[in-house]
Each structure stands twice: as C-alpha cells, then as structure tokens.
C-alpha cells in the first residue's frame, strides 16, 4: 500500500502535519512563553503556561490529527469500496448517526456509568447508519447511494435536534451546532484517550483493505477471482463497514460531526496518487489531519466573540469540491 512513488508526497504531507501540530501548540488565543511553559509542563508544575500548553492546546492538536486523519481515511476507503467519488462519512450520514448515538449517551447521563460509554454510543450510531445505508442501497447505483445518504443524514440530524430539545438541561438545545457541525474547543485528554482506541483500530482495519480496493476497482468478479473475499466476517465489506464505523464513531463522539474532510481530501490527492485506491489511503489520513489542523488554526484567528465551529470551515472548503464533482457527473451523464 505504501508505494515507492508516493514517498515524496507522504513526506511532504507528514512534514506539514508536524509543522502545523507544533504551530498549534506555540500559538493560540493568548501569548504564553513557550520555553518556560514546556519546562514547567515537563517538571509537572501547574503554571499558567504549562496548563494552557498541556491541558488545552495539546489535546486539541492531537484530536485535530486523529479526527482529521480518520475522516480523511474513511472517505478514501468508502470511495474506493463504493467506487463513488462522492462517498464521505458526512454525506452518507455515518457521522450523523454517530452524533445521534453520542448525544443520546452524553445528555441522558449514561456517561455517568463510564466515560467509555461516549465512544460506544458514537460507534453504535455509526454502525447502525452504515448498515442501514448498505441495506438501503443494495446493488443500486451512485444516485441511489447519494439519495440514501442524504435521507439518512437529514433524518439523523432531525433526531439529534429532537433529542437535544427533550433533554433536561436548558443548554442542551443550544448545543446542536456542536454535534452537527463539530468543534474541538475545550477538549481534554479524557476525550483523547476515549477516542484513540477506536480510531486507531478503525484506521488499521481500513488500511488492510488497500490491495482489495485496487482489485475492486476492476469489478466484483475480478476481485473475487483474484482471491479477495467480498462478503463474510473477514470480507472487504465487513472490514470497510466496521473500520469506518469504529473510526468515525469514536471521532464524532468527542468532536461532533465535522463534515466534508473525507470528501475533499481524497478528491485533491487522487491525481497525485495515480488514481489508485490503495495508494490514496495513507496520504488521505495525512491530508485529513492537515486540513483539520489548518481549520482549527483558522477558527482561532477568525473567532472574536463566540467561537466559529470547525465544521463550518471544512464545509466552506468542501462544498465547492462537492459542486465541482456534481458538475462533472452531469457532464458525464449527458
């Protein structure tokens, strides 16, 4: 899956992720002396700088990388598996399902049992959404898939809004934006720890499908004749479905449904990876991480009063790509 031809691309993307990760630690809403803050943090002193660096900026930067990466990779894997360049966890309603699951756990106090309930709720919602989607679409084409996705995501958003309206907390109904748009504000290391296992496992599962996705690009029969199992518990479908649900469910549970990352990143990187699904996976992870780090930095620059949700920025970047793809599809049809 890691082709020699992609080394430069992966190195450039990886370098940019590292640089922006460092930048998001150094630079934020307030000016802190970075050197002394680092020293305090390592010595375990709770100075203002150390607290800001270690407990506010660090978890936020880590989540930008893992959430962005997982969303980018999920987009690439879904697009490869469904052979549809418009597939994306947000567009298909997987993120929406995850958000609904997380909302039901978070606001009803189920989270009081254990913090691990939150990613589990997200996972359950995401899994339900993917299974529903696959069942709805069956052997239908691209149009059926997108229609089912649109229906599923608006249905999930409506149920999320309803659930929030019914919750006892007077603040709940104002928090719909966090869940349908996504945000990384005020995340803690607890959020990092509860989302990391699912995210890593899901990403690894998706990465194992690389060569099978290449074969699938040539058609189901070709893939099966090459020895790749499509169905069954260890088949490609199961791995893509479970991988996406694990990664997206864990990420949405802590950051809300940040959209369009999985759509825009594979689209931009596809020409650079020879239009080969397997070579797209790792660069998409890095690209997604990069996009969220940039978007999170932009949130901090642009926000004056209340903070802009990070999903607003990714949607602003992603929607034009979506329009472009739609126009291209129309030309292809006529």
């Amino acid at each position, binding site marked *: 899956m890691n082709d020699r031809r992609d080394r430069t691309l992966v190195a450039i993307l990886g370098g940019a992720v590292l640089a922006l990760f460092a930048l998001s630690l150094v630079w*934020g*809403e*307030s*000016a*802190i002396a970075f050197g002394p803050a680092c020293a305090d943090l390592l010595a375990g002193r*709770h100075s*203002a700088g150390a*607290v*800001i660096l270690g*407990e*506010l*900026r660090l978890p936020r930067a880590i989540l930008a990388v893992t959430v962005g990466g997982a969303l980018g990779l999920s987009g690439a894997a879904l697009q490869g598996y469904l052979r549809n360049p418009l597939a994306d966890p947000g567009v298909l309603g997987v993120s929406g399902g995850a958000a609904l699951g997380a909302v039901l756990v*978070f*606001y*009803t*106090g189920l*989270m009081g049992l254990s913090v691990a309930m939150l990613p589990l709720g997200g996972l359950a919602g995401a899994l339900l959404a993917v299974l529903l989607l696959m069942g709805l679409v069956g052997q239908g084409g691209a149009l059926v898939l997108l229609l089912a996705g649109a229906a599923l995501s608006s249905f999930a958003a409506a149920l999320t809004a309803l659930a929030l309206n019914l*919750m*006892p*907390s*007077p*603040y*709940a109904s*104002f*928090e719909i934006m*966090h869940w349908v748009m996504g945000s990384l*504000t*005020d995340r*803690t*290391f*607890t959020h990092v720890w509860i989302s990391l296992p699912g995210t890593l496992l899901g990403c690894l599962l998706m990465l194992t499908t690389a060569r099978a996705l290449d074969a699938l690009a040539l058609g189901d029969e070709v893939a099966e004749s090459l020895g790749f199992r499509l169905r069954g518990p260890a088949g490609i479908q199961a791995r893509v479905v479970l991988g996406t649900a694990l990664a997206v469910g864990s990420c949405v549970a802590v950051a809300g449904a940040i959209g369009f990352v999985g759509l825009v990143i594979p689209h931009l990187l596809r020409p650079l990876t020879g239009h080969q699904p397997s070579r797209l996976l790792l660069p998409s992870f890095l690209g997604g991480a990069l996009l969220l780090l940039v978007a999170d930095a932009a949130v901090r620059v642009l926000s004056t*009063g*209340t*903070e802009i949700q990070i999903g607003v920025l990714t949607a602003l970047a992603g929607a034009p790509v979506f329009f472009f793809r739609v126009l291209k599809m129309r030309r292809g049809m006529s």
Partner: protein
Amino acid sequence: MRRRPALTCLIVIGLVAVWGGARAQTRHRIVSLNLCTDQMLLLLVPRQDIVGVTSLAADCSNAVMCDAARGLPVIRQTAEAVIAARPDLVLGGVYTAATAILAARETGLPVMQVPPAERLDDIPRQIREVARAVGVPERGEALAGAFARRLDALRRVPSVTDPVAAIYGANGFVTDKGSLSDDVLTHAGLRNFTTVAGMGRAHFLPIEMLIARPPDLLVVDRSGVGTSLAQSMLDHPALRDAFPGPHRVTIPARLWLCGLPQTLDALDRLARARDALERGNR
C-alpha cells in the same frame, strides 16, 4: 353551637379592619408568575394562600426553596390560566409573562411586579414591599430586619487592594458589574475581574484567556439541571489545575439567582473563601 361561626366571622372581620387600617389586605388566592416572587411568597404567606407558582419553583437547581415548593399548584404563564385561577393578587417579574400580567391588569386584578434585585440592599426593601402587598407587613418587617442584621455582620469594607475574583459560568460566561452577584462579591471584600481586567464588553471568556490572566479567586457559578457541554466546560481539568485549593469556590446559582435571605449564604461562602485566600498568601 350556632354562635361559633358567627364569632369566627366577627374575629375575621375585625382583623381585616385592623389590617385595612394599616392599608394592608390579607390575600388568600395569590398567583406568582416569576421564580423570585414564588420564593418570596413561600417566605411570607401560608401555603394554602398560594394558588399558583412557576414550574421552576420546585426545581432545586434554580430555587433554593424547592423543597417547600413541592406540591404547590403550578400555573402556566398564560393569560387564560391566570384569569381562570381567580386570584386576588398577581405577583410577577418585570420581563416575563408580560401578556398574562397585562391581561390580569385589564380584568381589574391587583398586580404587583417585582424587578430583579440588583444589589443586596434591594432585598430587604423588596421583602417589605411584597409583605405589604400580601397583607403581612409584620412578617416582612421581621425578615427584612433579620436580613439587615446578618448583612451587617457579614459585610467587609471594600478596598482597592482586595483580591480579584471572576464569576465564571456555563459557556464561559463572566458576570459583569451591575448584577446581584457582583454586589455580593463587593460586600465579601472581593473585586470583580471584569472591572479590573479591562476585557471590554466581552461577556464570554475562553478558558485559555482566563488562565492566561488568572484572577485570585475563581467563583464557579453552577446552574441548570442535566448534562451539557456548556456545564461540562466548568469541569475542565485545566481549570482545576490552574485554580487549585483556595483559589476556587463553587456557588450554586440558586443562592443568588433571586434576591432572598438565602443570598447571604453566598456572601458568607465568598467571605470565607476570601479569608482562606488571605491565610494562604500570608
């Protein structure tokens, strides 16, 4: 046997005449359309004289007298519900249930609107006013007097060297001056962060900004029921580590949401927190 009701009647008439002389008429069907007047009523009159309170009155995260309010009839804040309750006095706030209050006025019902208390000194005055309106001026006088005495015992003389405190609530809301909680801070010998930090008109402060310019005391203002992102922000570990031990105090919002005798419990807690802070510095 027959004379007894007549005697009671005579006594009642006599009492009404006495109170009438003091321009106070005892009310027995009182409706309250505001959380603060709900609690004021509970302090002043017997339960059976209250025919309607708001649904918030029995909610312990908002009302300090929630236990006493359990079982009282809850009235909807509509004109129809208020008039159908046939009250002999309608109490309300200035900003809420405007239509119901207007309708009550138009049908000729006695209405009293009580503005939110903005200073501690407003509280005994409001207690006296409401007590007079419901016809128990002596009870009001006693409560107001007790309030004034306790306030005098608790209050500190403000000084420019007082420690700085920020009242921090859900969503990063910082309470500005001109509010009851700000006046409680001042009486506890604390200076409000918003008057010192020069943060302009910003009402919401991100955690990072608060930690970068930390006040001496973080007053966590907890309100509302249930779980929410807005509330969970106050439990962020960064706040816990940046404001350890004596630098942090939690005041339940119900203590100073309304101006009540219990508001002095908030003053007491803040004054103690301030003393602990001074001891820590020495």
